[in-house]
């Protein structure tokens, strides 16, 4: 059994080594960097099953105060690793587009860092997964955010990429401002930054409700931005559309997963306080409802698939928030909210990644992102079409796919908590979802292609697609491997503070 921090260290070391290699190598092709990255991450992923998982003890040695390696953290680390691997695979296929959009004298130059930065992002996500202290959480979150700033704006010849970069930068910094202000207040009220200690303080010390709620609003704003909750979602469609597709996928999965994990961890100490919990949950429900409706309905008239997926990403944030809004109020049953969110994110990882990989391939090849560029894909490239079909079905929540399980759990949580208004919004949005997701399927299967040549797909990509499809079905039938992580989880419900 290895110490869990080894995982982050290995990822970072890989990053350093590749950085050095990039600067000293004379080779024009940077593809091998990505391959090494994927390979290493794969090893780290494998290793993650052999680390000793242990939750952080509050008063253990100073170094580990902030770092928890419970099974939930491990699950999220794995999510991060898988996402990054997927992103790197996509990045390989995306190289041609990238090279065209970087001002350089030689093709392929300047792409190297694009393959390396995700490793650092990944490390940031992994650290975030383990962070049980606001300081580490802040540091790790900013590591992730800053690397995203760079990656989003990476294609300097593409006006869209730059515009997305600037928008993300400004709004991201704005949200960071709020987040930091919120942290400040939390610290100010409790005098602590460690979640568990905050919880203890909340349970024992007299405090001012209004001040705490003020702090929480600010934190919620910051995290709401990360998870794309309405009304802090504005950046999402524009940035997703402008960013290089692999980065979009990364943002959509990684950033969101991080945001939700942090949201749960931050809220946990406060939901235990009976005078606060109803108000917090009300706000969460409000956010959830707005997010659900906005994300899913605004996607209806969308013709650009990438933008459609970004609205869809908002919509899914809505479902996740719906689950979060159930924290602590539920009659018992159907596992914890944490497990619901965790599984949903995991499922979301599989299906979104699959969708983006195929989208990236097809849009690169047919030079367009509109839905009509996917016309007749079933005839041109059946595998891609089937993959996208599975991805869209899963996103829409068709049973026997992982996406359905996620949605099932969310709805069950909401029923359990009696959120009937949210549920009725949920019904409408699921209906809308069926429409816009299946529009893609309809284009692929009903329409005739404008050109018949199949789209070339590398072996690696094919393998990844197959694995993702298999994963979607497997976890759509048997969610146990993922859910098991939450059996002895810290994020249970507010009723039982973790330590």
């Amino acid at each position: 059994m290895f110490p869990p921090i080894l995982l982050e260290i290995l990822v970072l070391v890989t990053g350093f080594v590749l950085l050095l290699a990039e600067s000293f190598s004379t080779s024009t092709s940077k593809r091998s960097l990505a391959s090494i990255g994927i390979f290493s991450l794969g090893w780290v992923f494998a290793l993650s099953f052999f680390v000793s998982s242990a939750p952080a003890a509050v008063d253990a040695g100073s170094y580990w105060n902030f770092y928890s390696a419970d099974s939930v953290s491990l699950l999220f680390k794995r999510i991060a690793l898988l996402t990054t691997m997927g992103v790197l695979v996509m990045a390989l296929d995306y190289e041609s587009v990238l090279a065209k959009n970087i001002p350089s004298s030689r093709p392929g130059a300047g792409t190297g860092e694009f393959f390396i930065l995700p490793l650092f992002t990944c490390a940031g996500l992994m650290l975030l997964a383990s962070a049980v202290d606001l300081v580490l959480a802040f540091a790790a979150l900013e590591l992730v955010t800053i690397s995203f700033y760079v990656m989003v704006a990476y294609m300097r010849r593409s006006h869209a990429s730059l515009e997305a970069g600037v928008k993300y930068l400004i709004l991201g910094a704005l949200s960071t401002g709020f987040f930091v202000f919120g942290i400040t207040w939390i610290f100010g009220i409790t005098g602590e930054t460690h979640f568990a200690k905050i919880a203890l303080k909340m349970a024992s010390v007299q405090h001012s409700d209004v001040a705490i709620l003020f702090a929480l609003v600010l934190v919620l704003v910051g995290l709401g931005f990360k998870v794309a909750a309405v009304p802090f979602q504005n950046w999402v469609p524009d940035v997703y559309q402008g960013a290089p597709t692999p980065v979009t996928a990364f943002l959509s999965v990684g950033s969101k997963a991080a945001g939700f994990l942090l949201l749960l961890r931050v809220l946990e100490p406060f939901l235990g306080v009976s005078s606060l919990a109803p108000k917090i949950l009300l706000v969460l429900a409000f956010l959830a409802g707005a997010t659900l409706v906005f994300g899913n309905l605004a996607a209806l008239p969308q013709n650009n698939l990438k933008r459609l997926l970004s609205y869809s990403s908002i919509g899914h944030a809505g479902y996740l928030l719906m689950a979060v809004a159930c924290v602590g109020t539920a009659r018992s049953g159907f596992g914890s909210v944490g497990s619901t969110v965790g599984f949903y994110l995991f499922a979301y990882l599989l299906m979104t990644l699959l969708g983006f990989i195929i989208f990236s391939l097809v849009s690169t090849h047919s030079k367009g992102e509109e839905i009509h560029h996917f016309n007749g894909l079933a005839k041109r490239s059946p595998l891609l079409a089937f993959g996208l079909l599975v991805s869209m079905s899963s996103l829409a929540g068709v049973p026997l796919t992982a996406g359905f399980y996620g949605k099932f759990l969310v709805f069950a949580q909401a029923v359990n908590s009696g959120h009937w208004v949210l549920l009725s919004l949920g019904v409408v949005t699921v209906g809308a979802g069926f429409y816009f997701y299946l529009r893609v399927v309809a284009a692929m299967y009903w329409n005739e292609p404008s050109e018949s040549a199949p789209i070339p797909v590398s072996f690696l990509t094919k393998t990844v697609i197959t694995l993702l499809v298999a994963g979607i079905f497997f976890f759509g039938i048997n969610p146990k491997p993922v859910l098991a992580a939450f059996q002895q989880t810290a994020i249970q419900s507010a009723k039982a503070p973790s330590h």
Partner: protein
Amino acid sequence: MNQLTLNHYLLASGLLFALGFAGVLLRRNIIIIFMCLELMLNASNLSLVAFSRFHVGADGLPNYNAQVLVFFIITVAAAEVAVGLAIIVALYRARQTTHVEDIQSLKF
């Protein structure tokens, strides 16, 4: 007036924060907007330091955890400025503008 309380600092900090936020909403030059964001971050720092001084520990020292956090925030802000300005420069090179109304091609 005679004795400084925590609220004095918090109010000052809050006003600075609001000022920064107002700047973000009003100014159209991205660089200025970015400066305003720095104002907001530093407003938090003021609060944090005030809280740090407020939470005197059993050992009679201010709560240094908060000061460390301030240190991190300053560092992060600096890094953010660096990257942000690089992006702005890249934007300027490509589009010869740093105005927000010139970058709204991505919409709806």
